């Protein structure tokens, strides 16, 4: 295009402005300009019969920023702790609290149903008056122990997986997302923070393990129409099984939280937790099979709890070493886990993580 041709280009309307030349530079500005592009095109209201000022009035500004003071009072320590507990537990059931993945919620529901499998079988035996079936699935020392500490399927695929899914990210995600700054810049101390995190996962595990034990025990008595004498006979065994279940919950929670506190994501603590529970069990089992030595079970947290549980409930022991050794091992394992948890939480930062 030569100079003569370029001069002959007629004036055109551009962006609503009659007479404005459509030039390459203007096009470029319209297409890639660094400004917001609204300089010439902000819609303007035309007010009938209004003044010129009204005709030029721009639309769209409704945001009036003004600081509002707050005169409420703050609740004491228990309310802050309750907020943490509520946030973590309610997150499993409703929106607006700690977000858990859908898979976690579904697996938890499935585990809850599996945990009530013995109650279902007892129900069937009650409907069909199957005494032989009830003898297998009804209340007994072995079944109360088995409901809490039986290896397959509960402690092989249910409880450890739930513990891994629940606990995996409970502290590590605070490190990953930096949310520890939100906690520790508030009037919370680290003991409360750790205790509430511990309690929130322990409550869910408790409901799953000991809660279903209670449902099974109560349900079976009601369905079979057992009397007070049966209740009085079996209640101490139920309490012993509940105590063993509580020890299991405590151990899963302390080891899980310790692993969560040393990492920045939920994958490592979850896998490590399964590795410790199932891996140690497998190694101890292989050693026992090969050399007939059960001492290595002292390194397996599940087996230590199971051994102590057998002693508490009064079922036949499946281990060669004394149960007090398992109890001591359990104390040591939990002490180490809690020490790691405490030292790692105390190192969590507010200014940078």
């Amino acid at each position, binding site marked *: 295009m030569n100079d003569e041709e370029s001069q002959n280009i007629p004036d055109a309307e551009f962006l609503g402005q009659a007479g404005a030349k459509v030039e390459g530079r203007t096009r470029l500005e319209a297409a890639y300009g660094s400004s917001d592009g609204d300089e010439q095109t902000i819609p303007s209201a035309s007010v009938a019969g209004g003044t010129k000022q009204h005709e030029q009035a721009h639309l769209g500004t409704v945001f009036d*920023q*003004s600081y*509002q003071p*707050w005169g409420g009072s*703050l609740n004491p320590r228990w309310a802050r702790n309750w907020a943490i507990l509520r*946030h973590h537990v309610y997150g499993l059931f409703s929106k607006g609290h700690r977000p858990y993945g859908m898979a976690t919620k579904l697996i938890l529901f499935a585990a809850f149903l599996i945990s009530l499998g013995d109650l279902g079988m007892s129900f069937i035996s009650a409907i069909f008056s199957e005494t032989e079936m009830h003898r297998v699935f009804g209340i007994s020392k072995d079944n109360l122990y088995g409901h809490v500490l039986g290896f397959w399927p509960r402690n092989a695929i249910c409880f450890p997986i739930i513990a891994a899914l629940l606990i995996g990210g409970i502290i590590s995600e605070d490190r990953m*997302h930096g949310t520890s700054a939100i906690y520790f810049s*508030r009037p919370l101390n680290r003991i409360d923070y750790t205790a509430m995190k511990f309690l929130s996962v322990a409550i869910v595990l408790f409901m799953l393990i000991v809660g279903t034990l209670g449902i099974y025990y109560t349900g079976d008595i009601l369905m079979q129409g057992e009397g007070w004498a049966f209740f009085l006979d079996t209640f101490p065994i139920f309490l012993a099984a509940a105590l063993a279940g509580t020890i299991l919950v405590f151990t899963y929670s302390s080891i899980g939280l310790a692993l969560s506190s040393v990492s920045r994501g939920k994958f490592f603590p979850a896998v490590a937790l399964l590795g410790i529970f199932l891996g140690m069990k497998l190694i101890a089992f292989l050693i026992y099979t090969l050399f007939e030595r059960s001492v290595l079970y002292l390194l397996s947290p599940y087996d230590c709890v199971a051994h102590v549980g057998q002693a508490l409930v009064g079922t036949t022991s499946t281990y060669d070493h004394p149960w007090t050794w398992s109890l001591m091992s359990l104390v040591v394992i939990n002490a180490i886990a809690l020490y790691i948890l405490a030292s790692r939480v105390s190192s969590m930062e507010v200014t940078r993580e």
Partner: protein
Amino acid sequence: MSDQFVIETNDLVKSYGPHIALDSLSLKVKAGATGLLGPNGAGKSTMIKTLLGLIGVTSGEGKVLGFNIRTEGENIRSKIGYLPEYDCLNPGLDAIHQVAYSGELIGMNPTSAMQRAHEVLEYVGLRDQRYRKIETFSTGMVQATKLACSIIHDPELLITDEPSNGLDSRAREFMLKTLQQIVGEGGRSLLMASHLMDDVEKVCDRIVMLHKGRLIAQGRIEDLKSIDQEIEIHVWGHASELERELQNSGYEVRRTGRVMRVVRQDESTYAAIIESAAKSGAQLRRMNDHEPSLEDLFLVIMERLGYSVKSSAELFHFGPSSSKVDAPSELKEVGR
């Protein structure tokens, strides 16, 4: 200690083994907006943690809002709002619940925390985005949400750590305007740690400057800036000769290319510059009193400490190694 200061420390020392993070820090921060300045490793983060009552001090004493930093950390944190520099939000939560939860953690009951969360999110410009998940937010929106979390309980003192970090110009303007309004309209105090001098100058009327754990300047920006009045001249030709001539006449000169700044001694400085220019054959294209910025103040202070620094960015953006450079021993006492 007096009650007229929101923050007051007296010979505060915090050391990690042999490393002294805060060295005999004696601060007096009045109500209003105060900027906290200092290069990497200056001790800003340690100071914030100390003021929040999160870490014990080695020696000395301090008060924040009248509460002792050694023994009343929880009281301090319930009166303070803290906006961290780094991410601190749960990306899976929506903004309204994140802000409400941060209020509950301070001790607000859930209903009033939720009500207040709506108010503060509207205040920071996120009214229409409050039910969106934080993971979908832009940097500016995340920063605004962090601000909402820190002001939900209407704190008496707001501590912000690099509040405009990573924001585009529009979001930055909004953030600074909001902070200004919290101080001006809300009557709250602000301690703003930032490496952006312009931001600090826009929002704060006072500064506290730290270097290697020591306090090197504190006070009103205007007062501090008046310590050195300079005359700026634009020179054409023979600039080096003019610079030499002025220095020989006993004037302090800072030069960047053909722009020079001469420290004004008195009224006669103008005549001396013209005379020196005539002697050296340099053309003076322009001469005016220089209005110093906070950046200039920072450079002057760093020069006095014996550092050759061309801009604050040079110090602030360098890694920790920049703070390992020791000032000449004869100048070490200047900052005290």
